[in-house]
């Protein structure tokens, strides 16, 4: 009887454990597939590349992306996509086949820009009409009722019943424009956004929620020294590295590929300086070659960057990711290059942003980090960026200006994340580089010991002085811990003895 009871207890216990662990989703994460359906990358008369902004947001979610141009739209099965993003920069009539396919689609649609009314009318969504913005006021019609939402500095939420339709309107933003979005069942409508104001952050945040199933994502901020090249002031660069190290900031260096005159002294000195930066908490990223242009084929750029990578590795410098313009992503002949890394640093407003002239597919990336140049104009708003960001300072900036910029960022409560926590990999022609928290691996062998030895030899004067002045209690700590563990063991034994004596006292 007793034995059966014990067996039953164990069975119940293990059943509970199985239920608990069985309910935990242990499926491997599959990359989501997202499609962007767009008419043009910008609004007429505006230089702002809105398509590029949306692409960046989607890639940051770790999704595989298909960019579909409306003018090149062919009948396809949209149901294979986990979410759809529709970007209309121009007012026009929607093609019939697109309308049909969108209406059949029953997962999340994110509609940005114009022509949403057409979609609403086509789908007989009764009563809801968007009438546009008027100096901060938004008017919405639902049946015969008209609602105006006053501009407010905070988010306000309204629930409106209109016949059988229950809709939720959210109003956000404080700009003279009135960015807001409407949610209707599976459709999220953003009438407006601009990269130049906070509406972009709001869009990014909401899209991030939708694309990631409301899972919270922590945005990271990194510091990046941009366009590091052999002919910059090396002494100043070392001082900048020391400054960052003394302030406990780890950083990235976007290094230009060097593939000519690699045996010159200038290259050797440059490599020593980069290794010094590596030792001081820096991680390298391979910048795209300046030879890139419309007429340079992708395999040529690939070849030059591979040569640059090999050169660096030979000198003990380990670039671990790619710094590329977004335009690379949609060019077929550059696909081979961009897939060499699972991490890309992208620049938004360079000459070569995403301008997809036809449909294209972009594979997912593990990490997409947007480069944002720190300057006096944007430093106030940097902490509000809702994406993984590399706050960028050019290597050409003077030491004083560099220090001032970094100090200002810190004072604005920008916390620079530790670069060693971002795992990256880059493979070029048999040279495989991977990074983890513990080390950098070259073809699966750790280069860490090598770095450590060189670290000792390359210690700066301030480091050595700091070593002399700081007190290292490691050995004392270990000794005390050993003794206290022994004491705790002894006390436990004494306590058990006392417990037995105490029991005897009670039963006397």
């Amino acid at each position, binding site marked *: 009887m007793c034995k059966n009871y014990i067996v039953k207890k164990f069975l119940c216990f293990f059943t509970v454990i199985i239920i608990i662990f069985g309910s935990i989703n242990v499926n491997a994460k599959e990359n989501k597939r997202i499609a962007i359906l767009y008419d043009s990358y910008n609004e007429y008369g505006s230089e702002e590349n809105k398509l590029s902004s949306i692409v960046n947001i989607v890639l940051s979610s770790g999704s595989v992306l298909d960019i579909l141009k409306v003018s090149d739209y062919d009948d396809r099965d949209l149901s294979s996509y986990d979410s759809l993003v529709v970007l209309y920069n121009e007012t026009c009539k929607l093609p019939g086949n697109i309308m049909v396919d969108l209406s059949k689609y029953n997962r999340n649609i994110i509609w940005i820009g114009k022509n949403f009314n057409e979609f609403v009318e086509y789908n007989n969504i009764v009563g809801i009409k968007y009438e546009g913005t008027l100096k901060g006021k938004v008017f919405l019609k639902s049946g015969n009722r008209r609602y105006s939402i006053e501009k407010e500095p905070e988010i306000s939420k309204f629930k409106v019943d209109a016949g059988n339709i229950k809709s939720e309107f959210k109003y956000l933003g404080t700009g003279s424009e009135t960015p807001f979005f409407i949610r209707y069942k599976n459709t999220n409508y953003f009438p407006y956004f601009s990269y130049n104001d906070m509406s972009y952050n709001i869009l990014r945040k909401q899209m991030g929620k939708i694309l990631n199933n409301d899972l919270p994502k922590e945005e990271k901020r990194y510091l990046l020294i941009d366009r590091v090249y052999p002919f910059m002031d090396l002494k100043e660069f070392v001082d900048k590295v020391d400054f960052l190290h003394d302030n406990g900031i780890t950083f990235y260096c976007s290094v230009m590929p060097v593939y000519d005159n690699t045996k010159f002294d200038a290259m050797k000195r440059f490599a020593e300086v980069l290794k010094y930066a590596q030792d001081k908490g820096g991680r390298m990223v391979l910048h795209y070659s300046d030879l890139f242009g419309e007429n340079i084929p992708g395999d040529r750029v690939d070849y030059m960057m591979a040569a640059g990578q090999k050169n660096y590795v030979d000198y003990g410098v380990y670039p671990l990711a790619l710094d590329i313009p977004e335009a690379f992503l949609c060019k077929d002949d550059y696909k081979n290059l961009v897939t060499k890394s699972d991490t890309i640093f992208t620049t938004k407003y360079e000459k070569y942003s995403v301008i997809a002239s036809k449909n294209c597919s972009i594979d997912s990336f593990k990490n997409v980090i947007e480069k944002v140049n720190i300057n006096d104009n944007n430093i106030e708003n940097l902490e509000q960026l809702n994406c993984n960001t590399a706050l960028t300072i050019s290597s050409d900036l003077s030491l004083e200006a560099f220090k001032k910029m970094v100090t200002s960022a810190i004072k604005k409560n920008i916390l620079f994340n530790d670069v060693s926590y971002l795992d990256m990999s880059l493979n070029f022609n048999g040279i495989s580089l991977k990074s983890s928290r513990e080390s950098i691996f070259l073809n699966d062998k750790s280069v860490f010991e090598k770095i450590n030895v060189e670290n000792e030899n390359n210690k700066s004067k301030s480091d050595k002085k700091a070593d002399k002045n700081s*007190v290292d*209690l490691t050995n004392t700590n270990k000794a005390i811990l050993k003794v206290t563990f022994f004491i705790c063991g002894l006390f436990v034994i004494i*306590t058990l003895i006392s417990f037995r004596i105490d029991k005897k006292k009670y039963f006397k």
Partner: protein
Amino acid sequence: MNIVDSLIVYSLAVIWVIIFINVVLVVAGYIYYLKTLKFKMKESLEEYPFVSVMVPAHNEDKVIGKTVNSLLNFDYPIDKYEIIVINDNSSDNSAEVLRQIQEENPHRNLIIINTDKVTGGKGKSNALNIGFNASKGEFLAIYDADNTPEKTALKYLLETIVGDSVLGAVIGKFRCRNKNKNLLTRFINIESLAFQWMAQAGRWQLGNLCTIPGTNFIIRRSLIEEMGGWDTKAITEDTEISFRLYRMGYKIKFMPLAVTWEQEPQTLKVWFKQRSRWTKGNIYVVFKNVKYLFLKESGVSRFDLIYYIMIYLFFLSAVVISDTLFLLGLAQIIHVNITGYSIMLWVMAYVVFALSVLVSISVEKGEFSISNFFIILIMYFTYCKLWGIVAAMGFYNFVKDIVFKREVKWYKTERF
């Protein structure tokens, strides 16, 4: 290394030295406890010297009746001891209560001395001197006015002191009568047990050292005569007399079988006043006796002096400094250049503290319980931290007394 680093190293070093000293004391105290399990006290003694039991009291009408009745019930020949209650400048009903007890016990050696602000009102030491002058016992046993000693307490104390001529005094154990009243009294109960079994028993085992706790102790009359009575400037006259005894070459033994029960403070306010008074008093005694630290003839009392200096000066300052620096570090106001020490160090300090207190209370019947275990766990972060404030206040008041030449008065503990 800047001043902050130096302070951290100082506080780490001091705290860990004290922790290890206390560990040694706990182990030694436990060894003594195991010895006491084999003690066989006599049912009756060969002879019963005359003992004067003295009870200094000031406004103790709530408790004095119970105390005197307990003293009248000692398992000791009634013609071989006298009870002298010094009702010192009381403004309550103490005199009336005592008179009534005296009337109810006309054949007992119960002497009541009522003083006023002219003849008395100058503190416990002065009251004891008054009682001493009226006493005739070969031995003097002292009890506080809120104590209810067990019947065998006096006999056990006396048996111990007459058994060894080197003993100048013998102290018994005090227990908390109102320990279950609230969380504070439970803290105090654990504290008193830990103090007695660790500091008293441990020190006795290692160096034959103890400190008179002010109540439930017996002392040879001749020694008081030699000392010229109690020091009226001392608030903690018990500590003061302990040091004097050691300098005279005598020892003070801990006899845990002689038990008294006393009422402890039930509110924080009362507790705070009492403890800061003790701290002030002990600081006075330390300052008074520090000159003997470097004299060989001071004997073992030097170790006691060092122990008190370590606790009251170094340890408490280290705790205050480390807590302050911890908070400043959290607020990122200071920067520390010390490497290699981890949070595990503090965790282990806490674990050692908890276990050592647990060991100390495990020797008392019925105290080794789950509830006491949890109380010990929270004690470190609550009750122990209050001691830092108490120490600071005590030191501050001590300095004020010196600067403003304040007279010692009765700062008696409020009774419930």
